[in-house]
C-alpha cells in the first residue's frame, strides 16, 4: 500500500474537491490509501501526488472518473430509513396529486416528476418507483418521470442494469415486494422491466449546472451534502431550489439539517419525518 504524505493529501484532496465536490481533510488520509491505493498501483504511481498529476494530464478524464468511482461512497439500501417513503406515500404524493388535479385541464395525464439526486446504485429511485406503482392503481392517468443521477459512472451503470446481489436486497425489501418487482437471476435479483422503464439514469455532478432535468415536483437529495464543505452545501441547495416547482418538495437525509445553509426552505414535519418546501414569502420576493 502506498502511504499518503502531507503534501499528497493536500494535492489529492484539492483535486478531488475540484472534480467532485467531495471534501476530504487531513483526517481522511486513510480513505485516500484504502480507496485509491489500488488505482495508484495500477497506474504505476509512486505517490498520490503523481496519480493526481497523471489524472490532470489525461484529456479523456478516464483516470478522473476512476478516482470518482473509487472515492465516492455508495452506501444505500432499498427503502433505506422508512421515514421518507412513508412521507412520500401518505403526505407528499396525496398533496401533490390533489394540487395537480385541481389545476389539470381536460383529460391529460397528470405529470409527476421526481429526481433522486446522487442515486448511487439506484436503490432509492427504484424504491420510489415501487411506492408509486403500489399507491396509484390508475397508473395510466399519470405521466410519471423519475430521474436518477450520480457522479459515479460505475454506480450509474449498476443502477441502469438494475441487478443486485443478495446482500444488497436482503434488508428493506419484504418477500412480497421482492417477488413482485424483481426477477431472480442466478444468485442475484434483477428489477422488473415495468419498474426499470419508469426511471431515466444519467451521470451528473450535482455541483455543476443540471442537464435535461427541467422542473421537478419532488427531489430526494439524501446523505450527499454531508460529503461537501459548507460553501458547496449552500450552492447545492440553492441550485436544487432553482429547479424545484414552487410547491415542490425536498427530502434530505434524516440526520441532515438546512439550518444556516439554505433559508429558502422551510422544514415541515409529518409523523416522525421532516420534509422541506420553499417559503411562500421567499417565492414572492423572488418573482
Amino acid at each position, binding site marked *: 500500500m502506498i502511504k499518503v504524505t502531507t503534501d499528497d493529501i493536500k494535492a489529492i484532496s484539492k483535486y478531488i474537491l475540484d472534480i467532485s465536490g467531495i471534501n476530504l481533510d487531513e483526517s481522511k488520509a486513510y480513505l485516500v490509501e484504502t480507496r485509491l491505493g489500488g488505482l495508484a498501483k495500477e497506474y504505476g504511481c509512486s505517490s498520490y501526488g503523481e496519480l493526481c498529476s497523471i489524472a490532470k494530464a489525461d484529456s479523456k478524464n478516464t483516470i478522473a472518473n476512476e478516482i470518482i468511482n473509487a472515492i465516492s461512497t455508495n452506501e444505500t439500501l432499498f427503502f433505506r430509513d422508512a421515514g421518507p417513503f412513508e412521507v412520500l406515500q401518505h403526505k407528499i404524493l396525496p398533496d401533490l396529486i390533489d394540487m395537480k388535479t385541481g389545476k389539470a385541464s381536460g383529460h391529460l395525464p397528470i405529470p409527476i416528476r421526481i429526481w433522486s439526486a446522487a442515486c448511487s446504485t439506484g436503490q432509492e429511485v427504484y424504491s420510489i418507483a415501487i411506492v408509486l406503482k403500489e399507491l396509484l392503481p390508475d397508473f395510466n392517468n399519470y405521466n410519471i418521470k423519475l430521474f436518477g443521477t450520480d457522479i459515479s459512472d460505475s454506480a450509474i451503470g449498476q443502477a441502469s442494469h438494475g441487478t443486485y446481489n443478495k446482500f444488497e436486497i436482503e434488508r428493506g425489501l419484504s418477500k412480497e415486494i421482492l417477488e413482485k418487482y424483481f426477477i431472480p437471476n*442466478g444468485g442475484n435479483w434483477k428489477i422488473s422491466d415495468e419498474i426499470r422503464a419508469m426511471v431515466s439514469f444519467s451521470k451528473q455532478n450535482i455541483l455543476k449546472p443540471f442537464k435535461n432535468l427541467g422542473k421537478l415536483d419532488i427531489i430526494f437529495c439524501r446523505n450527499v451534502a454531508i460529503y461537501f464543505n459548507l460553501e458547496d452545501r449552500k450552492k447545492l441547495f440553492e441550485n436544487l431550489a432553482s429547479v424545484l416547482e414552487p410547491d415542490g418538495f425536498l427530502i434530505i437525509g434524516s440526520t441532515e439539517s438546512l439550518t444556516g445553509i439554505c433559508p429558502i426552505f422551510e422544514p415541515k414535519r409529518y409523523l416522525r419525518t*421532516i420534509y422541506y418546501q420553499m417559503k411562500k414569502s421567499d417565492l414572492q420576493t423572488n418573482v
Partner: protein
Amino acid sequence: MKQLKILAVDDDPFTLKMLEKKLTKEGYDIETASDGIDAGKLISSKFYDIIITDLVMPGGVDGMDVLEKAKTKNKETEVILMTAHASVENAVEAMRKGAADYLKKPINFYELTLRMEKIRSYKKLMKNAQDLREAMDVTEQNAAQTIQHLEMSVAELQNVVSEINQVIMSQNIDPRKCVDRVLDILSS
C-alpha cells in the same frame, strides 16, 4: 464464531464416511444423509450453514433438487455440489441456481476444506457488515431525532423573530402598543 453446521449428502457410503471423518476432525458439526429424499427431510426440519451434496443420486431427488430445496428454505445456506461427471454446463447451471461451489470427484479434501474456509470467511464478513449496519441504524435514528427536533425548534424561533421584527419595523405604531404586541407574540 459458532461451529458451522454441515449436511453431507451422498448415496456412496464410502464418500459419506470419509466426509464425516475428515470434516469432524477439522472441527465441523456434521450430519449425513444417504440420498436426496433423506436430505430433503432434514433440510425442512433444521438449518444448515453448508450442504455438501452429490449431483447424481438415485430415488428421483438429485443434487440440483437438494440445492433448490435448501435455497428455498433458507437463502443463508450455502451449497457445494460434487460430481464424478463434471461438465461446464452442469457447473454453470448449479451456479445459476445459487450453488457456492462445484467440486470434482474423487474429492480432494484439502481443496474442500479451503473452499469451506472461504465460505466461513464470507459468512463472517456478512455478519460483520450486518452488525455495522445495525449499529449505524441505531446511531442514525438517535441523531435524526435530535437533529429534527432542533431543526423544527429553530424554524419556529425564526418565525417568532421575523414576526417581532415586522412589528418593530412598522412605522406608524405607538411604542406602548408595539411592546404589547411583541409580548403577545412571545407569550403565544
